[in-house]
Structure formats: structure tokens, C-alpha cells
């Protein structure tokens, strides 16, 4: 390979060093690497940002929440074991099923995907860490805070009790307590963490692969994670937007979902399920990804139909966004809408089935080695296929009308989620545990656990289909005897306890002291993928040297691979400057582009999470002053974090990465990871905004006088003025980036400051529109909708203003220059999105009333 990071023509294959470096050189390299990646000790341990540590905390917490949700499930099963039971009151039962569903979805199923990916994605990609370790840590602390807050509420009899989907008007008009606020704000907070994780995963999978790992060679896990993370970007924002609307309705009386003032509860259902259905696949895909890693290992052959699995992952990712209305089949939508969504619900079964056939084909073509992970994988396939079949049944609208809101649905989605997510995760626990602490879990306990969970699960949930068909509704705390539910419910309860016993065995196996047990041998299952390069027990540096990849299963196919890796014959075998480093590569062909310096331990992520959490938690109690002080604090902490920890100018331009490869240490623009992160974050942000715009047009379709004629506001003048000023601010920001690149200091400063002034003027003009025309958001849904669009846009302008001033300060402080311009490149990118938001807002609030 030449030193040119983008050689044209067929890439020459790079071979590792033919001679091992002398033993003393290797030792010195290892010492320097260990020093750079040293884990903080004592109480400072909690400042670690290393993916292995953060991922481990994440996993432990999600498993704790799994137990918590599981105990709630058992309480429900005890209550339903016999008719007319009074073990739980109706009130408490409502809280228990709401918290059970919410915890399992938001605090277990989604975060465990992030947790597993944070630990293993870098390992599978031969990277030292993900590109933004501190962002992962921030996400974890947010998740911990939000999760504890939400779960804690049930002990104060204050938990949400409107079902996990929080339908208004039940949750707006009829539940004045604090429960719904806890749900809305607590989960919005956690969703922010999920989007942060999604950014990390996407940039990790696309930009942090080892050299040579072209897009046709990446581990299937990375494909699945890429798709699931991309889905988060488009699925979570509608819920964040919806939660914001519902919370504003509860706190300030803006009537988005209140039919008496023009609102419509159905809008919530659309926004919720636009999130809620893709979420099922966001849970399912990363879990089935574990199966895609496990199956080839135990079939002792490469996966059959790699491209077909990519088809399945990407296809499912898309199609799953066309299913949301099948949760709303009984709301009286026109038959043609039901038909369209029913069609998509049937179509999604195709890619889902394809990947299962690929797994079966791989197993059939290979020679299968029996093992506990394979047992759980088989169990998963059996259960999931059954859940998928009932899924196709409920996708048929007329059957859905019958089964809706009955225990049939409860049976169906537990088959899907436990088969599609929980069993693969258990399989993953047994498979990957040696990478966590170097020791295997017990085969014997694993087999016992499998049969208990598998049998217990089926005894618990199979009868529910029948209970449901006999007419037992969901979410009812008890039932009279003699309706044919008694025996079936008792059987379900017995099964639930058998299942729980199996889960208890797994937890015991995970937690039991393993001091005397010897370390497992390296790569104990004989797998072919990169994560199994790890020594037993692992080292904090992630990878000893970053390998050159020629195959989908390098450990099987590349000769002397592990030796070359261990002896540091590949890239970056050293940390000469004592810095944490990894290689950033191009998206499709994984050509090395940059040596990325990674940040080390810090408490700043914890402080940032506490301050951000303060905003949401004080907000829950409507302590607005404290909430806004918290928000201001959060902005300060995050600015400090950015100022001290990002876009650091390196001491030299380039670095030898080994094997004759010279890589730049500082890259800005579209090849830098920061630019990608901004782009991805803003895509999610734009999706949330589009959800609000969808709300506007939704109200237009259901009302004859929306927008009212004559329009009471915001008029044309102020929005038009805002449009001109804000587009000016945008254009000047873009020019400032160019002027900075040419090192025209005065123009850069003038451009940015003038842009900031225009941003202030434009933001004010935007707010002036509805203000001077006297639109009262609490009076009717039209003013409320206009105000929400205006406020959303103004808030983005305010953030953009802070960014412009930040760039001025960075340049003044010598932390940004013509050559080192990450800050202003990313700010300019942000302003592109602000410009789109402004244009759409003005077109909708000022333009649409003219044409409507």
C-alpha cells in the first residue's frame, strides 16, 4: 500500500510485517499501550469511558431492569392466577402493567442492544474503541438516571398507569397525578441517550472498520446494528415530538389531543406507533444479529446467503415503517388505509423469513457442534416463528378486529419479543461471556436454564392465545369465574414461575463467584470473527494492533493471523505519544483516512447527565425555574466538555501508523467522524420536526376550518422577515467557513458576528408573528400548532447562535484555525439543517393558510 490513503485502481493487498519486532520492542510497545489505556482506579473508576467498562455497566443495569420488570410480571401473574383475586388493587395493577411494559421496552430491550453493541462492536471491527467514548458514557449516565427515576416512582404509588402507550385522553384529562409526566419526561430523556448511542453505532460501523474490511466483508452484526441504529434515527423522534406535545398539553393546557378544543387523540396514536412499531424491529434486529454471529461458529462454516441477510436487515428496516397503523385497525380509519398497512405487514414477513432460512441453510450445510448458545438459538427460532405466524394473523384486519386488546395479542407479542430478543440475548450471554471476564459460563446450568425457560415460556404464553380467543381482555385486573378463563390463567401463572426459575438460574450462573475456575482458552468456540482475538482475560487496549482484513472470517481464513496480531505486526502497534488512538477508514472500502485520537477518563459526562437530567426531573414536578437553571447548567457543562475535549489541535500533522502507512491526525469536513455525527444527529432532529409538521397537516385533514379562514395569525410579514434574516444568518455562516479556510481572520469574525446578529433578529421576528397577532395557544389547536412550530425553530436558531459565538471564541483562543477547522465545518452543517427547518416552518405557518 502506498502512503496515499485513496489509491486508485485495484487496491494492493497489504501484508503484515514479515519479521516480528524484537521481543524487547514488543514489550515496550505493550507497556506504552497499557499506560495510554490504563483504567482509572479507586473511586475514579467511575470516570472510565472505555467501551468495555461503559458497556459492562450498561449491560448490568439493563439486566437489573429486566429482573425488575420480570418481578412485576410475576406480580401480575399472581393476581390473575385465580378469579376475583385481590392480591393487587386495580389501581396498583394499572401501575404494574404500565411499568412492566415500559421497563421492558425502554429500560431493557432497547438499552441492551446499545450495551452489547458498545462492548462488542469495536471488538468485531478491530477498533480500539468507538469514535465517541465520552458520548457512550454520557448516554449511560442519562439512562441510569432516567431508569432509576422511572422505576422508583412505583414505590411511591406515583407510577404511570396509562399503559405503555399512554393514550390520551386517558393520560391527559383523566390522570391528573404525576405518573404520566414521569413517563413522558423520563423516557424523553432516555430517548436522547438512545439517539446518542445510535450516532455512535452508525459512525462506528461505517467509519471505524479495520483497513481492508470492505462493505462486503463486515460482520453481519455490524449490518444489523447499522440498520437498527438508522431506524432509531427515524423512529424515536416522532415519539419525542409526541411526548413533548402531550407534556405541553398536561402542563400548559395546549390542546393538541383535546377534542373539545380541536385536538385529536388519534394524532398521539399515529406518533406513538410511528415509533412503536419500528421499535419492535429495533429490538429484534440486533438480537437476531447475535444469532447471525453464533450460527456460523457452531456450524463451522461461513454463513450461507450473506447478501440475503443484508437484504433481510435492510428490507426489514424499511418495511417496518409501513406497519404502524396495524395497531390502530379498530380506530375507524378508512378501509383503504387499513388495507395498505395490512399489505406492508404481510410483506415484512418476507425478509424476516429469509434470514431464518439463511440460518437453517447454514446449519444444514455445516456440521453442527452442540452447545448452550446453540440451544438458546434454536429455542429462539422456534418461539419467534410461532410469534411471527400469529403476527401474520393479526396483520389481517378482520381477524385483528376480533383479537384486538385481548390476551391473544399478549400471547402474540411475547412470542415475538421473547423469541426474537430475549432468547438470542441469553444465547449471547453464554456465547460472549468469556470475553467479559475470561471465563465460561457453566454448560450444565445453561442446559437446565434453557429447558426451564423454554418449557416455562410455552406453558405461560401458549394458553394466552386461547384465553384471548375466549374473550379475556388485556389490562383488566381481575375476572369473574366461570367464563372459561380460570384454568388457562392458572396454567399461565405456573408457566411464568417456571420461566422465572430458568431466568434465576441464568442470573446465578452470571453472578456466581468464579474465583477458582480457570481462565477459558483463547477463542474457546473456535469462531472466525475479530472479537475472538481477545486474550483471556482481555486487555484494556481493545486490540493489540489493528489488523488488515481480507476475509469475512479472518481467524479462519488468514494464516498466522493471531500471531501477527499479537506480535504487533499490523497497524498502530504502539502508543508513542501516550495517546489513545484508533484508525478511521472510508465508508465503502475501508481505506485508512485518519488516525483518530480518543479522549480518556472524565467525570464531565456524569455531570452533563446530571444537569440534563435535572431539567427533565424538575420539569416533571413543574418546578420550571429549577428546570431551566438545570438546562442552563447543562449547556455550560456541555460547552466546557466540547471546549476541552473535542477538535484538539495535534502536536504534529501526520503519524506513522505502521506498514508504511502515514495518516493525518486531524481531519475536518465530510471524512471526519464529528461531521458524520452532526449529520446523523440532525437527521433525527429533522425527523422530529417533520413529525410536528405532520401534526399540522393531520389537523388540516380532520377539520374543515384548519387553518381558520380568515387566518388569525401569524400573518405574512413577520414570518417573511424571519425567513430573510435567518437565511442571511445561514449564508453568512457558510461564507465564514470559507473565509476561515482562506485564513481571512477579520472576515471570518465579522461574518460570524453578523450572522449571530441576524440569527437574533430572525429568531425574534419568528416569535413576533404569533405574538403580535395575539394567537393564544391554550384556546384552540390552531394557535397551539403554530406556536409549537415557531418555538421549535426558534430553539434551533438559539442553539445555532451559541455555536456561532463558540466558533468566534475558539478562533480567538487559537483552538481553531484555517487548517484546523472542525468546529466551524460542523457548525456550518448544523446551519444547513436550521435553514431547512426555517424554510419549512415559514412555508407552513405563513404560506399554507394562503393556499388552503
Amino acid at each position, binding site marked *: 500500500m502506498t502512503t496515499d490513503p485513496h489509491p486508485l485502481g485495484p487496491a494492493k493487498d497489504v501484508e503484515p510485517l514479515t519479521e516480528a519486532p524484537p521481543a524487547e520492542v514488543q514489550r515496550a510497545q505493550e507497556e506504552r499501550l497499557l499506560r495510554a489505556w490504563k483504567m482509572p482506579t479507586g473511586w475514579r473508576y467511575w470516570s472510565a469511558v472505555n467501551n468495555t467498562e461503559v458497556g459492562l455497566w450498561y449491560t448490568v443495569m439493563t439486566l437489573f431492569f429486566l429482573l425488575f420488570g420480570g418481578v412485576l410480571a410475576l406480580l401480575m401473574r399472581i393476581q390473575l392466577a385465580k378469579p376475583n383475586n385481590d392480591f393487587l388493587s386495580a389501581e396498583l395493577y394499572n401501575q404494574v402493567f404500565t411499568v412492566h411494559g415500559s421497563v421492558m421496552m425502554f429500560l431493557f430491550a432497547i438499552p441492551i442492544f446499545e450495551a452489547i453493541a458498545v462492548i462488542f462492536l469495536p471488538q468485531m471491527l478491530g477498533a480500539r474503541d468507538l469514535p465517541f467514548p465520552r458520548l457512550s458514557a454520557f448516554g449511560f449516565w442519562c439512562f441510569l438516571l432516567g431508569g432509576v427515576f422511572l422505576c422508583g416512582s412505583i414505590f411511591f404509588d406515583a407510577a404511570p398507569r396509562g399503559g405503555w402507550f399512554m393514550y390520551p385522553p386517558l393520560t391527559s384529562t383523566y390522570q391528573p397525578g404525576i405518573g404520566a409526566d414521569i413517563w413522558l419526561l423520563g423516557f424523553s430523556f432516555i430517548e436522547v441517550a438512545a439517539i446518542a448511542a445510535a450516532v455512535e453505532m452508525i459512525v462506528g460501523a461505517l467509519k471505524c472498520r479495520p483497513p481492508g474490511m470492505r462493505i462486503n466483508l463486515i460482520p453481519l452484526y455490524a449490518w444489523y446494528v447499522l440498520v437498527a441504529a438508522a431506524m432509531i434515527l427515524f423512529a424515536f423522534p416522532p415519539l419525542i415530538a409526541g411526548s413533548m406535545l402531550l407534556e405541553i398539553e398536561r402542563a400548559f393546557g395546549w390542546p393538541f389531543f383535546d377534542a373539545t378544543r380541536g385536538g385529536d387523540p388519534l394524532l398521539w396514536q399515529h406518533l406513538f406507533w410511528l415509533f412503536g412499531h419500528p421499535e419492535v424491529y429495533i429490538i429484534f434486529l440486533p438480537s437476531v444479529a447475535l444469532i447471525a454471529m453464533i450460527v456460523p461458529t457452531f456450524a463451522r462454516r461461513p454463513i450461507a446467503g450473506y*447478501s440475503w441477510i443484508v437484504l433481510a436487515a435492510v428490507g426489514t*428496516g424499511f418495511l417496518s415503517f409501513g406497519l404502524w397503523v396495524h395497531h390502530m385497525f379498530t380506530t375507524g380509519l378508512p378501509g383503504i388505509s387499513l388495507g395498505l398497512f395490512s399489505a406492508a405487514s404481510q410483506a415484512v414477513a418476507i425478509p424476516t423469513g429469509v434470514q431464518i432460512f439463511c440460518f437453517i441453510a447454514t446449519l444444514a450445510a455445516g456440521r453442527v457442534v452442540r452447545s448452550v448458545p446453540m440451544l438458546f438459538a434454536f429455542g429462539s427460532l422456534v418461539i419467534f416463528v410461532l410469534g411471527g405466524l400469529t403476527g401474520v394473523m393479526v396483520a389481517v384486519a378482520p381477524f385483528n378486529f376480533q383479537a384486538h386488546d385481548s390476551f391473544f395479542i399478549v400471547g402474540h407479542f411475547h412470542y415475538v419479543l421473547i423469541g426474537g430478543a430475549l432468547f438470542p440475548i441469553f444465547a449471547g450471554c453464554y456465547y460472549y461471556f468469556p470475553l467479559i471476564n475470561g471465563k465460561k459460563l457453566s454448560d450444565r446450568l445453561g442446559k437446565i436454564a434453557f429447558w426451564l425457560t423454554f418449557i416455562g415460556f410455552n406453558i405461560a404464553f401458549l394458553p394466552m392465545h386461547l384465553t384471548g380467543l375466549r374473550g379475556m381482555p388485556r389490562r383488566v385486573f381481575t375476572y369473574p369465574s366461570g367464563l372459561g378463563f380460570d384454568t388457562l390463567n392458572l396454567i399461565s401463572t405456573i408457566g411464568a414461575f417456571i420461566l422465572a426459575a430458568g431466568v434465576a438460574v441464568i442470573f446465578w450462573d452470571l453472578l456466581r463467584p468464579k474465583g477458582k475456575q480457570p481462565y477459558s482458552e483463547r477463542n474457546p468456540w473456535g469462531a472466525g470473527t475479530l472479537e475472538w482475538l481477545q486474550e483471556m482475560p482481555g486487555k484494556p487496549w481493545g486490540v493489540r494492533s489493528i489488523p488488515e482484513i481480507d476475509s469475512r472470517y479472518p481467524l479462519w481464513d488468514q494464516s498466522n493471523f493471531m500471531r501477527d496480531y499479537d506480535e504487533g505486526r499490523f497497524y498502530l502497534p504502539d502508543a508513542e505519544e501516550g495517546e489513545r488512538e484508533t484508525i478511521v477508514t*472510508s465508508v465503502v472500502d475501508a481505506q485508512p483516512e485518519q488516525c483518530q485520537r480518543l479522549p480518556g477518563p472524565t467525570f464531565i459526562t456524569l455531570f452533563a447527565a446530571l444537569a440534563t437530567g435535572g431539567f427533565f426531573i424538575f420539569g416533571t414536578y413543574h418546578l420550571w425555574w429549577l428546570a431551566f437553571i438545570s438546562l442552563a447548567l447543562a449547556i455550560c457543562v456541555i460547552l466546557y466538555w466540547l471546549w476541552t475535549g473535542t477538535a484538539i489541535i495535534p502536536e504534529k500533522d501526520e503519524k506513522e501508523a505502521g506498514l508504511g502507512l502515514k495518516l493525518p491526525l486531524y481531519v475536518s469536513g465530510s471524512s471526519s467522524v464529528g461531521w458524520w455525527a452532526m449529520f446523523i444527529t440532525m437527521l433525527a432532529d429533522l425527523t422530529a420536526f417533520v413529525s410536528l409538521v405532520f401534526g399540522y397537516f393531520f389537523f388540516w385533514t380532520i377539520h374543515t376550518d384548519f387553518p381558520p379562514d380568515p387566518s388569525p395569525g401569524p400573518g405574512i410579514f413577520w414570518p417573511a422577515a424571519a425567513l430573510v434574516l435567518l437565511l442571511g444568518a445561514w449564508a453568512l455562516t457558510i461564507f465564514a467557513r470559507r473565509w476561515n479556510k482562506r485564513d481571512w481572520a477579520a472576515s471570518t469574525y465579522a461574518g460570524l458576528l453578523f450572522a449571530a446578529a441576524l440569527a437574533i433578529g430572525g429568531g425574534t421576528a419568528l416569535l413576533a408573528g404569533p405574538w403580535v397577532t395575539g394567537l393564544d395557544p391554550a384556546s384552540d389547536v390552531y394557535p397551539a400548532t403554530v406556536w409549537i412550530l415557531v418555538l421549535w425553530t426558534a430553539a434551533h436558531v438559539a442553539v445555532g447562535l451559541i455555536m456561532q459565538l463558540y466558533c468566534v471564541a475558539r478562533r480567538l483562543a487559537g483552538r481553531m484555525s484555517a487548517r484546523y477547522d472542525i468546529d466551524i465545518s460542523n457548525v456550518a452543517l448544523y446551519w444547513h439543517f436550521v435553514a431547512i427547518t426555517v424554510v419549512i416552518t415559514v412555508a407552513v405557518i405563513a404560506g399554507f393558510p394562503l393556499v388552503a
Partner: protein
Amino acid sequence: MGQLAEKNQSLWLLTGSPVIWAGHFMLSYITASIWCAKLAGPDKSLWEVRVAILVYTALALAGIGFIGSIAYRKHSHGHAALPHDADTPEDRHRFLGFATLLLSGLSGVAVIYSALVVVFIGSCH
């Protein structure tokens, strides 16, 4: 050959056919919703929507077919057979072509599924 394969280093074509499916789906849904909510006469007839959706379907299938044919050319470029797992630009090229081709097939089927709805449903009820 290498030169050709190194060009067009992009993943966007992979998402082309599913995006067309999504566009067709949303357009059909929005057309039907607005028609039924705002424009349909007292008989709630769906004639115009059915014609519109058939037009959308023809356009969508044409687009998907076009992407599929590009993908097929990429996939069958040169001589290598499946599973396209070599560390060469050609195999990467063929893999992306094949995956795009498969996704075009799936998107085509999904579009036809959607279109079938208006074959069977004739009113807004």
C-alpha cells in the same frame, strides 16, 4: 476493471428501491387519506384514488426495475461467483450490486402488495 469498480463508492443505491417503496406507500396512503377526508363525494367512491395509485405503482415499478437492472449489471460484472467475499474492489462491487438487486425484488413485491389493495377496495368505508 478495477478502475470501474472503484467508482461510485456509495451505499445510496442500496437504499434506492426501498426508498421508492416508501415513497409509493406514503403517497398512496396520503392520497387516500386526503381524498377520503376532504374530497370524496357522498357515495365515498374511490375511483380517482384507484387510478392515481395505479399510476404511482407503474412509476414505482419502473424506478425499481431501473435500479434493479443497474444492480444486475454490477452483480454480473466480471466472472466471480457468489458469495462475493474477497477483499477486492470487484467483489465489493458485485456484492453491492447483488444486495441492491435483492432489495429491488423485495421492494417490487411490497409495491405490488400495496397496489393490490385498490384492486379489492372500492370505497372510503
